[in-house]
């Protein structure tokens, strides 16, 4: 026999917005619906309800009941994001999902398996509670009954016998039209159990076509095929901040929450994050984007958070932040087998963090692997990010000619007296004196085809104290380095 489950997020629109407003935690909050002529309260949290605020009140009425009530507007982007979260979590139980309504996901459970209440809690409820969401679940033989059970779930309600569950429920649980409800009340019918004992044909004859649907729902609804949807594999979170953020703490709070949500979704599909992309949008316009490569793909929130934290600790901007976005690139978990004598990194995550700290200390152009540019210029190179997964070089027999020397960056200006064409005397801030010996010149030039030609005349010179590399360029003579 088929079974259906419904995952329901009550006060869905309010919860969708509250996910991005951590400062509202523990406060009375109400969602304001401004679609009609006058704004009205459409959803409210438990604290607001305790303060006697009611749905349908105007903002003035609500504030009169509760002066500290926080009134917020709905956000369709956040609602879509929360619906995706619900879909991805529901996929833990079955791939056959229907996005029945905002905040309600119907799941067709596999017929060959019976889910216990604790299993449903563990798979669907607890991951969402960890994300700070309130959800309920109902399991029954039809989608309509499962939805009704979800409304009464605490947090899970499994309906074994529909009459026993439905009988004592108030007729208003079926959400009939107001007019129909008042008629039924005038007949003295208060519970579903009282309605279903009435003959269907006569009820429909007296109350019209609306009563047919109501009677069907009162009998547990009918079996219908679901409109199947596939949850988007969308591992990103973004928000526009209500107030510009200038300090690190609120930003970190949101990023940690985002990471929790993204990693929960990754865990649901057995994937890990390979890269993280952080985008910060500024109040004065423009944005900042940074891609973090994760050395050992993971979905551990602490590790990922440390990476972001280390980077942001040293991040400064001229403008306050008004929006942020965090996205993860999912990959399958790495299943490599480590060798016994492997020379790999002991802890790639820690190493990545150390690299981030070094980059924060010195700048990203001063930490990495040197990459020599394809040029004959002796000091053309750039620093590229260090690859933690580079393999050990195979034994090479590259012939290395010449004693290496250390460079002066920038080169030290010098005055040179020539004897014929050979340097004979040197004046500079590093050394001054007659040259004992000189070898050269080595003539180098390049980039003449690009229009910014360079040429150099290089000499090795020996003073009383040391050996230097002397270079003559258009600007004059320079000490380029020292054999130290």
């Amino acid at each position, binding site marked *: 026999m088929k079974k259906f489950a419904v995952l329901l997020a009550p006060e869905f629109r309010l919860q969708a917005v509250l996910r991005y407003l951590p400062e509202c935690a523990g406060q009375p909050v109400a969602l304001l619906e401004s679609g009609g002529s006058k704004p009205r309260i459409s959803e409210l949290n438990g604290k607001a309800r305790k303060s006697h605020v009611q749905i349908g009140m105007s903002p003035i009425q609500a504030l009169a009941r509760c002066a500290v009530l926080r009134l917020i507007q709905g956000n369709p982007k956040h609602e879509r994001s929360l619906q995706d979260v619900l879909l991805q979590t529901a996929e833990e139980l079955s791939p056959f999902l229907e996005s029945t309504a905002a905040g309600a996901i119907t799941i067709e459970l596999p017929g060959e398996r019976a889910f216990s209440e604790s299993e449903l809690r563990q798979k669907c409820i607890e991951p969402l509670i960890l994300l700070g969401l309130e959800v309920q679940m109902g399991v029954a033989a039809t989608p309509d009954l499962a939805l009704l059970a979800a409304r009464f779930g605490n947090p899970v309600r499994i309906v074994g016998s529909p009459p026993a569950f439905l009988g004592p429920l108030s007729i208003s649980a079926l959400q009939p039209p107001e007019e129909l409800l008042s008629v039924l009340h005038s007949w003295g019918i208060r519970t579903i159990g009282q309605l279903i004992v009435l003959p269907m044909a006569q009820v429909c004859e007296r109350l019209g076509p609306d009563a047919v649907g109501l009677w069907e729902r009162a009998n547990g609804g009918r079996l219908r095929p679901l409109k199947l949807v596939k949850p988007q594999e969308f591992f990103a979170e973004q928000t526009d901040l209500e107030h510009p953020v200038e300090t690190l703490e609120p930003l970190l709070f949101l990023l940690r929450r985002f990471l929790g949500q993204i990693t929960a979704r990754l865990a649901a599909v057995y994937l890990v994050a390979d890269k993280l992309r952080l985008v910060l949008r500024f109040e004065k316009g423009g944005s900042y984007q940074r891609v973090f490569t994760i050395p050992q793909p*993971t979905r551990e929130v602490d590790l990922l958070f440390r990476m972001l934290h280390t980077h942001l600790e040293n991040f400064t901007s001229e403008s306050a932040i008004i929006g942020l976005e965090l996205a993860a690139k999912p990959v399958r978990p790495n299943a490599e087998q*480590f060798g016994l004598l492997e020379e790999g990194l002991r802890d790639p995550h820690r190493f990545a963090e*150390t690299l981030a700290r070094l980059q924060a200390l010195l700048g990203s152009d*001063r930490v*990495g692997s040197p990459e020599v540019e394809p040029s004959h210029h002796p000091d053309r190179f750039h620093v590229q990010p260090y690859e933690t997964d580079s393999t050990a070089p195979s034994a090479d027999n590259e012939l*290395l000619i010449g004693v290496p020397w250390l460079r002066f960056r920038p080169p030290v200006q010098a005055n040179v007296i020539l004897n014929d064409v050979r340097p004979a005397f040197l004046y500079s801030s590093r050394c001054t004196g007659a040259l004992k010996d000189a070898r050269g010149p080595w003539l180098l030039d390049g980039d003449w085809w690009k229009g910014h030609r360079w040429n150099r005349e290089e000499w090795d010179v020996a003073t009383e104290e040391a050996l230097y590399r002397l270079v003559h360029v258009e600007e004059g003579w320079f000490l380029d380095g*020292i054999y130290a």
Partner: protein
Amino acid sequence: MASSSEKVFQLRQLLADRFGHAETQADEIYRTGLIPLDEAGIPRSSLTEIVSSATSGPGGTLLLFALLHAAIQKGERVILIDGKDAFSPKGLPAADRKRLLWIRCHDAWETIKAADLAVRDGNVPLVILLLTLNPVTELRRIPATVWHRLQVLSEKSAVTVLVFSPLAQVGCARLRLSVGGAFPLDKLHQNRARLIPDLTLRVERRRMSHERRWEDEEIRRPACA
């Protein structure tokens, strides 16, 4: 669900926590593959100072490049903390550059801060501090406690630290070598491998590890009594 690689990290961490001392065996030698250095015996997980100034010739830089090449060819990664942004990457084979983490500092203080992070990390077994071109006045201002902290960190994280310095300044170094050799201008453009034997390395000072010293005291005590 932890992946297999995560489990290996956890196991490594567990072993390191329980048997951390086993990683840093006293008086173990770090094998470089370079005969002059291996004869001198560089202590593993310790600070070694290699004194080479401009007046003593190009031996220090020659040794540095040979050491980088040998270590990387062994399959190791190396961190080079360049105290005066003086390293010339063209002097290293292209294949070796990818395994080298080059940290370009502008003064001794940046170098020390970077060294602290690199040694504390403990992922790369060889960290080299190149201070040859840093002004002597700047180097003299580094307190001895800084070197002592690096020594303790290197022991803890099993990292071998080599300090190329123009003057003897690392008081707590387990080994101090001075580099020399005659390299006239004629020799500067020869095959580098043939120049290595011309290097002269002199052991200026060698200190025993704490554990060894303790053992020695244990042996001496009954004799004194």
